């Protein structure tokens, strides 16, 4: 069964239609890249999948492992395995990152009827994942994303992804703001999570990221629709010729 099926999705924000009948199917083990010009609706799609309020779905449907995702509250979607690494991760002053990770992980486990992690088990897990992502311990003691550099914020997103072990990972421009070294570390982190029963949707503007995270499929979005799909070579093509050729197709 597919992990994600978006069928003819139509979405409005404040009376304006942003997605005009978008379809996308993602199977277990696959990595899909979504590319497209600014404002084409990539973040909107990721927000609607995650259940952010403020978007009105006026048509189509989204199935997650065959279930109607649109009927679930966003925290339920999370506990069922939908993870969104944000383009702009927010800061939560006064809440230590470690506390946040633990609260979130245990909330998800509780929702699934699983037992909470014991403190030593949790610490062991966080420390090993953090180490693999070059995240220093003192960053975990600071407020969530407070005073983090752009790169640190993105790594913190990957850290959570590794910790929560979701079955669908949507990464919204995880490469923006990362220098080459940080990009490699983050990409390695993502690649380590690739598995036959997990799927990923990687949103990016740059082919460069796709050298590190090699996708199985590439989709081009323009004006709220997928206008072209192909293999990883499509990204190279885009890099050479830009989006202009697709603007008309939309």
């Amino acid at each position, binding site marked *: 069964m597919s992990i994600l099926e978006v069928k003819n999705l139509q979405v409005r924000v404040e009376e304006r239609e942003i997605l005009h009948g978008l379809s996308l199917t993602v199977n277990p083990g696959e990595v899909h890249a979504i590319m497209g010009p600014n404002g084409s609706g990539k973040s909107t799609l990721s927000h609607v999948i995650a259940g952010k309020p403020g978007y009105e779905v006026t048509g189509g449907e989204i199935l997650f492992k065959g279930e109607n995702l649109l009927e679930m509250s966003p*925290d339920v979607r999370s506990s069922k395995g939908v993870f969104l690494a944000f383009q702009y991760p927010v800061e939560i002053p006064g*809440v230590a990152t470690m506390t946040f990770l633990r609260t979130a992980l245990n*909330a998800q486990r509780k929702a699934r009827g699983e037992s909470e992690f014991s403190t030593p088990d949790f610490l062991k897990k966080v420390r090993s994942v953090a180490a693999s992502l070059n995240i220093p311990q003192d960053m975990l003691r600071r407020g969530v994303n407070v005073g983090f550099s752009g790169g640190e914020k993105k790594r913190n997103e990957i850290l959570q992804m590794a910790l929560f072990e979701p079955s669908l990972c949507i990464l919204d421009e995880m490469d923006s703001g990362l220098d080459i070294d940080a990009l490699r570390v983050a990409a390695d982190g993502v690649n380590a999570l690739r598995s036959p029963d997990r799927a990923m949707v990687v949103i990016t503007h740059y082919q460069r990221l796709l050298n590190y995270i090699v996708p199985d499929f590439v989709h081009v979005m323009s004006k709220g629709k997928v206008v072209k799909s192909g293999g990883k070579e499509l990204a190279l093509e885009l890099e050479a010729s830009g989006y202009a050729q697709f603007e008309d197709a939309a």
Partner: protein
Amino acid sequence: MAAVQETVDRVRRIDVDQYRYGFETLIESDKAPKGLSEDTVRFISAKKNEPAWMLEWRLEAYRRWLTMTEPNWARVDYPKIDYQDLYYYSAPKPKKTIGSLDEIDPDILETYKKLGIPLREVEVLEGVVRPEGERRIAVDAVFDSVSVATTFQKELKQAGVIFMPISEAIREHPELVRKYLGTVVPTSDNYFATLNSAVFSDGSFVYVPPGVRCPMELSTYFRINERNTGQFERTLIIADKGAYVSYLEGCTAPQRDENQLHAAVVELVTHVDAEIKYSTVQNWYPGNSEGKGGIYNFVTKRGDCRGNNSKISWTQVETGSAITWKYPSCILRGDNSRGEFYSIAISNGHQQVDSGTKMIHLGKNTTSRIISKGIAAGVSQNTYRGLVTAHRKATGARNFTACDSLLIGDKCGAHTVPYIEAKNSSALFEHEATTSKISEDVLFYCVQRGLSQEEAVGLVVNGFVKDVLQQLPMEFAVEAQKLISISLEGSVG
């Protein structure tokens, strides 16, 4: 909305239960006649076997009160109180005693569970009498923990700390009480303080002798020995030279009282090099969904840093009451003395909070610090009102004030009213204020990571108030954190 309804229903059920448990049955002879007159004052004083000087002191306050008018400048709004329609004295009512926690409404137990209060303590707070023996004892003496209390008493006695109900102190240590009572909050201070002086019911008296560090947080003691002090509480704490004491008032457990008007007075005195840390966690009944029936909490709290290098620190977490009107203050009389005020004030539903502090710099090089966190939800109004003054002789006075307000939803209000008066040019006062709305993006971030909407609000708010929470004694910080989340239930979505 659903959660608000749930809270309301829960409170309603509690109402019904307390009624069923005979909350209303009073023994008439233990009550002063309704209304306030010299006779009422005499009745109270006689009930407490007070010496003549105490009665005189009360009567003087009463006569003064007759000449005063109720203040109306706070940003709170409430129906006129008919002072002749109130009772001013009733003996503490024992709660209905019950055999086991099974008899308590599961919803109430759930609240305790959310607060993380151990079951044994819940038994005490809810008045469970264990079956062995047919003893029927008032709440404050029930428990097997009596033995714990006795151990504490012994320890305090060894250290020379006097800690007892003020009604007892008036009889047993009249010289101390006479020396200090009303010297920080004069009987004529304000309408509610004057009223309190005339009719105060009971409260705590603490005296820590020179050089003594009180061997325990008096909070620890309190937790197991909660007393019903009535609506006009009077507290007097003195730290003599070089002494230190930490005192916690209140309780995270939901508190109800059939007395709507509460007007407490708290006086603190520190001598040279002494320090008092006074923490309050208040969770009075805030009223029903229309704001009816909640407690009016009009409190006068003031500390006097009488000696050089002394320090008074107020920390408060206020989540309850229909109306809160309180300004714990410090008079920084001694040179180099320091006053601190850390406050978390949460208002939800129809609550009205008008709180803040006064820092009166009289001595040289006195310093003060004010950290106020106001959180407003529902249709509540939350006002910080602060006064910082430096007297002419207070050269080198310093104050730092930071007032942050967080709004949840768009029907509530937060207001910051700072007054600053520097009568000498070397005083340095800094004031920062921010007001922000709880961010939808931050909430969504949390929810995307698996937290429910309410958990997300609780987490964000607890982050917002962290600086203040850290000032609380450890065991209460954890509970206060949970209390904050509970009091905001149903405030979003």
